[in-house]
């Protein structure tokens, strides 16, 4: 440790670079040379880099602990490393330069994330080495997986929002690539694209959040944002985000009807928080952007475990925890987060109730659990929300891997992807796959909140906090003193959130037990178990001949337990799922994790607590409120037991039949995808079609084709004249000469009046053989009877008066022409003569 401290000072902690670079190295090596290396070498490479990364992360974490210990209790410590100066951008009041460095840091919060990512990542790599063993694109898989870990590490270790964004988009890319891993099937590729685009909608929010934060706080790194976060709340009008009129303008003239009596503004804190939260809903699959996650199950199951359960999808929660000091400035945004989280938890749970695909159940369960996490952070219980991230990583990864293990063994004889994941084809696997069963059961117990398991502690704390901690504006009193009203959270929100949470938890208990019972209990329904009739070696790489038959005709060997590479991770994760809760056992006042994370959330918790007046008064409610969670667990699992074990699934069928429409609606996931397809996507597509049509029809038509047509029409007319016939052209020439002749014969009397500092000169236009005579005094008679050659006439006019000047022209043919002109400017009434020009 001393060596470490001397090698890597706290501000140049290069080990972080190594932690990130190791998986990247694996990705590059496996990606470029994977095919030549062969499977064993690819496995070795991928596992080595992950193992080393985990070790390095562990060492870093221990070092961090020591540093934190030295710094004293409750101090926020950080080990940082700057790779290089990346670029810079503008922000702040004076639009100064904000340097954006490629800088990484680890503190109490990201330290835990780092451990989870590398640790669980290593286990899942190990699992995959067996799970994917027969896949043709083995090396590509590990390259992607390693790249994912790199991106995820960049996400949590990034020291500013932009570096975080590299990881944020990087995990999105890897997720896209891994969901569409088997791109030969168009649905998989489409699911990948859907995920990427849904994430991009979120990223749109994140970008807006970034520039708002850059603009108001003048910083993008965590320290800088924390330092200037209060700028987001400055009460002056300029510091508010003007929604209507857009940007704070004024609608005038014709548009004045759009001008509201009071401009609609929100604080920059609310705007930035909501924008960032939009990013979180994309990445962490919350309403309304959750739709990609269930589809993402098209990817290989280890991917679902790592990316779509344990790590990537929790990035949103991490972001909110990371920027907690921004979010607490806006009670409105906090309430939105909590409400969205609670509704997502409930909504996804309803869908999970009836799904038959085991991965779909787990996917909706993930969405639901993520909802719980957002409920937690939304009510200001950052520790609780983050704790749920931690425990969820264990039990959900374990559940997915367990499901993968089951699917793996089912797939040995059912080669259809859908059928091999259908729980109706499973059952009774308990006796064939004991390890998988045990770990799956333990994780199920954890997720449904069986008392004293990890899920119990994390979920109960969220529910408790939801009931007791209202989001209060940290500066409500100060602002009220200045006569500025702030948004107040209605008092009914807390209890409602609690009730929704309890209902969702009950559903969780029900559907998870249902999945457990359908898969592992009862009779095996997959195929007839017995000696295989044909000893055709049925490997995985001969699926190419359209083997889509549901199950085998005739008996086949019983499903078998998976090899150790797959069961070992299950056991480790199940262990974590069972005992991980004791890291933060709030009801027993044993909270090492809470104390560890306290410095991270200190600022915001203090802000909140000051106003609420401490949450100590609510402490006596902890056990009574825990009753709700325990009841949810008991009721949900009891109903499931009664339905699927005691009654062998009969009641479920009956309920489904008596409520056919509702059941179908739930099976179809509330038809949200269809709804989005018809509304958002439909509108966008229609707009796009209109744009494309306008582009071709109107813009191009008007500017290019219409112009061309005009020229062509002119050409057509002119071409008709240019026939090349001698007599026609001769006639045209005669006409032309006649025209010119007439022009020369007719006299043209034209004058121009020039004025130079009050004196006027009238100048007649020249012509061949012209003679002129003038009427300069305006008496109607020409000054002389004879025509002379005076072409320029000086006229004196009194100021404010005008004079009529007449000119007659005679040309050599003796023809005359005449014209008259008014010289001088008439004085306007009331206007002073002086200065009138």
């Amino acid at each position: 440790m001393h060596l470490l401290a001397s090698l890597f000072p706290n501000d140049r902690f290069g080990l972080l670079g190594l932690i990130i670079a190791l998986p990247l190295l694996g990705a590059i090596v496996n990606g470029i040379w994977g095919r030549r290396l062969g499977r064993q070498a690819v496995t070795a490479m991928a596992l080595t880099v992950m193992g080393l990364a985990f070790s390095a992360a562990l060492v870093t974490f221990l070092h961090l602990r020591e540093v934190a210990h030295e710094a004293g209790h409750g101090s926020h410590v950080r080990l940082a490393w700057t790779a290089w100066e990346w670029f810079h951008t503008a922000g702040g009041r004076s639009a100064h330069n904000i340097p954006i460095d490629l800088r990484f840091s680890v503190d109490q919060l990201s330290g835990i994330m780092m451990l989870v990512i590398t640790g669980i990542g290593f286990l899942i790599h190990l699992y995959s080495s067996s799970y994917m063993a027969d896949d043709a694109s083995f090396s590509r898989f590990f390259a992607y997986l390693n790249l994912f870990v790199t991106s995820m590490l960049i996400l949590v270790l990034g020291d500013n929002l932009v570096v975080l964004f590299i990881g944020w988009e990087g995990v999105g890319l890897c997720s896209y690539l891994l969901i569409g891993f088997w791109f030969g099937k168009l649905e998989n590729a489409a699911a990948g694209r859907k995920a990427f685009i849904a994430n991009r909608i979120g990223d749109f929010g994140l970008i807006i959040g970034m520039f708002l934060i850059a603009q108001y706080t003048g910083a993008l790194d965590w320290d800088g944002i924390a330092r200037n976060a209060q700028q987001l709340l400055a009460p002056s009008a300029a510091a508010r985000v003007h929604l209507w009129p857009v940007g704070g303008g004024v609608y005038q003239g014709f548009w004045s009807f759009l001008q509201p009596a009071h401009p609609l503004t929100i604080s920059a804190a609310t705007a930035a928080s909501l924008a960032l939260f939009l990013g979180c809903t994309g990445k962490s699959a919350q309403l309304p952007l959750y739709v990609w996650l269930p589809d993402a199950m098209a990817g290989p199951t280890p991917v679902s475990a790592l990316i779509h359960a344990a790590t990537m999808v929790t990035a949103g929660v991490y972001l909110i925890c990371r920027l907690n000091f921004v979010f607490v400035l806006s009670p409105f945004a906090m309430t939105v987060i909590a409400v969205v989280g609670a509704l997502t938890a409930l909504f996804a749970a309803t869908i999970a109730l009836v799904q038959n695909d085991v991965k779909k159940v787990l996917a909706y369960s993930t969405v639901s659990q993520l909802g719980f996490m957002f409920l937690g952070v939304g009510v200001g219980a950052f520790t609780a929300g983050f704790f749920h991230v931690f425990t969820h990583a264990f039990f959900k990864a374990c559940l997915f891997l367990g499901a993968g293990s089951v699917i793996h063994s089912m797939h040995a004889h059912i080669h259809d992807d859908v059928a091999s994941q259908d729980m109706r084809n499973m059952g009774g696997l308990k006796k064939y796959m004991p390890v998988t069963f045990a770990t799956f059961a333990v994780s199920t117990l954890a997720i449904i909140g069986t008392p004293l398991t990890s899920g119990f502690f994390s979920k109960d704390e969220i529910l408790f906090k939801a009931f007791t901690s209202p989001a209060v504006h940290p500066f409500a009193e100060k602002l009220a003193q200045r006569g500025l009203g702030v948004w107040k959270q209605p008092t009914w929100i807390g209890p409602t959130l609690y009730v929704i949470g309890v209902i969702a938890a009950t559903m969780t208990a029900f559907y998870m037990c249902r999945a457990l019972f359908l898969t592992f209990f009862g009779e095996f329904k997959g195929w007839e178990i017995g000696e295989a009739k044909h000893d055709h070696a049925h490997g995985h790489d001969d699926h190419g001949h359209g083997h889509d038959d549901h199950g085998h005709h005739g008996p086949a060997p019983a499903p078998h337990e998976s090899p150790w590479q797959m069961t070992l991770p299950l056991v480790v994760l199940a262990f974590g799922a069972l005992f991980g809760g004791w890291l933060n056992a709030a009801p027993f006042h044993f909270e090492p994790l809470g104390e560890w994370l306290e410095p991270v959330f200190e600022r915001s918790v203090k802000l909140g607590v000051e106003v609420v007046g401490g949450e100590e008064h609510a402490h006596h409610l902890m056990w009574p409120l825990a009753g709700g969670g325990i009841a949810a667990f008991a009721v949900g699992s009891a109903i499931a037991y009664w339905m699927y074990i005691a009654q062998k699934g009969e009641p479920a069928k009956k309920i489904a039949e008596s409520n056919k429409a509702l059941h179908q609606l739930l099976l179809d996931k509330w038809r949200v995808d269809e709804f989005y397809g018809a509304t958002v996507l439909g509108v966008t597509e229609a707009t796009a079609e209109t744009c494309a049509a306008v582009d071709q029809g109107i813009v191009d038509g008007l500017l290019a084709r219409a112009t061309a047509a005009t020229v062509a029409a002119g050409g057509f007319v002119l071409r008709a004249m240019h026939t090349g016939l001698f007599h026609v052209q001769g006639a045209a020439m005669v006409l032309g000469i006649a025209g010119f002749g007439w022009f020369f014969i007719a006299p043209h009397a034209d004058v121009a009046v020039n004025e130079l500092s009050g004196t006027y000169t009238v100048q007649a236009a020249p012509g061949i053989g012209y003679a002129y005579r003038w009427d300069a005094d305006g008496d109607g008679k020409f000054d002389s009877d004879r025509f002379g050659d005076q072409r320029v006439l000086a006229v004196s006019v009194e100021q404010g008066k005008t004079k009529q000047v007449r000119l007659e022209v005679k040309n050599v043919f003796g023809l005359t022409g005449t014209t008259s002109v008014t010289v001088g400017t008439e004085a306007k009434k009331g206007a002073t003569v002086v200065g009138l020009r």
Partner: protein
Amino acid sequence: MSAHSEVQATERPGAFDIGLPDILFTALAVAVIAALGAYTDPAWVPAGIAGLFGFAAVHAYDKTTRISVGAIAALCALFVVKMWPTAVSLTGGEPVVESPTQLSWLIGLPLGGAIFMLFMPRQAHGLLKNLTLGIMVLTFAASLPLLGVAMGSGYHFDQNLAWIPQFGIRYHVALDGVSYWLVLLTTFSVPLATFVSFGSIHTRLKDWVFSLLLLEAGMIGAFVALDLFLFYVFWELMLIPMYVMIGVWGGSDRVKAAVKFFLYTMFGSVLMLAAILYLAYAYGKVAGAPSFDYFDLQRLVLPRSTQVWLWAAFALSFLIKVPMWPVHTWLPDAHTEAPTAGSMLLAAVMLKLGTYGYLRFCLGLFPEASIEWGINLAAVAVCGGILYAALCEWQQTDLKRLVAYSSVAHLGYVMLGIFSMTQAGVEGAVLQMVNHGMSTGALFLLVGVLYDRRHTRQLADFGGIASQMPIYTVMFIIATMASVGLPGTNGFIGEFMVITGTAASLRLGHFAGIQAVGAALGVVLGALYMLTAVQKVFFGPVTKKENEGLPDMNSREIIGIAPLVAFIFILGLAPNLFLQSISGATTRIIRDVNERLDASPPPEFHRGVPKLLNRRPEAPAAPVVAETK
């Protein structure tokens, strides 16, 4: 596990194909590199490692290709090491001697080469190809000394000779931070495009290389010309070869596209010519003798009424060139019909002349009018460029047309950045010009690869290409990600700087926020259209028999794409290498505009007779004109 594993079933399970000799060779090579680095220049170490990496990475190709890619990788690494900010400050002790003829060589080499080509035998294809590439590589090499010069805020390599003195027309070329990377981008991408084109152009080769060389001369000239007359000459000079390239070697509807391209551009440039003549005349009225020199004309302050019209003439010309809504429709046609190299150069370099023109001439000569109308142009850039073009793009069924529309969207960011008039916005805009050259150049190259194999560009004709051409797919996805602005690739930096710069803009007034939001929305649309196209072309099962067994990228193509991919990442990860030479010039531009606006504030601006200001401090010293009278 998968029912789809028939794709890429070529892997030899368990094969450990990297044997002891490989490892020994690598070790030896590393040792040699390290020794070389220790004794000569430490920069050789990363360069050598990168070279080795490049050599090893394309293991599926023959030795020549591997060595070439290795060399490209080594050069890129060398570039990064040498340009690294700390490295520059360390070696920045002695001032670099700037040769005044440097830029003239850059113009003269390809121009002279083009004329020289006329005397070469038409049938000797090998000779023509090698000579052309030789000239272009020489030009590129001649442009490398530019890298050694710290740009700062001033002008460099200034050369100012009398040309037609009685009209004040001079041959004046110089380089500043704005044109710096654009010139290098030109000398970099022209040989690349030419090299790639030799794989698909086999007819009228002599005419082809003549056009390419002439085009290069024209483009470089237009970027460095600081005499407006000279600029106009180059501006028109590059128009003709491109017109010929589209019209002769283009697709089925090439003549129409070529004429459309020519007429559109010509329409704008004739107006610009009129404005240039008026400017020179107006300068002559005030100063006594007309001048076409940029720094002279910059001193001229015209009344608002005049300025707006002159500005409009310039702006329309550039608007067409960029191109921006509503005068963008020539671009999809031109791109679709143009041969691959033509599309690459059109997108990578020629379009930048429009945005460069805004930055140099509109903002430099008519700052008041530019600011007055800049808000509107920014709105056009967001609505008509970023959003509208993206939506149009989504509906395209032709892959090349789709990429063409993406150019409109990307240049929308550039326009927005320029008119945001913030340091980050303008810098981001200049960087985005370079970025777009790399990523869109790569995309056009890749579309050309597919076209050469299938002679179709319709999305519907493809599907499942990923299983047939895996290397190609990887390259295409990298280029796509750069195009949609994934952080870590070049596209992100430019877009992000433009968006934040726009949000912080004071010149855009209260529209700044909503325009930044609109620009951010373009990020979503970008992903939507590019990924839809990628999915249609690459994923899913192979449905068309013609697509089975398509050969993957050949040596020529892989060598062509390698530097572009390298720069996609270099620009994305170390943009400071580029920004450090851009920022001085952008600071100067913004300061100049602000000073002019402070002197004659909006909305009235300057009234009365035109007046002359002092020469800008950064302007190169005015030439000593021999008095003839």
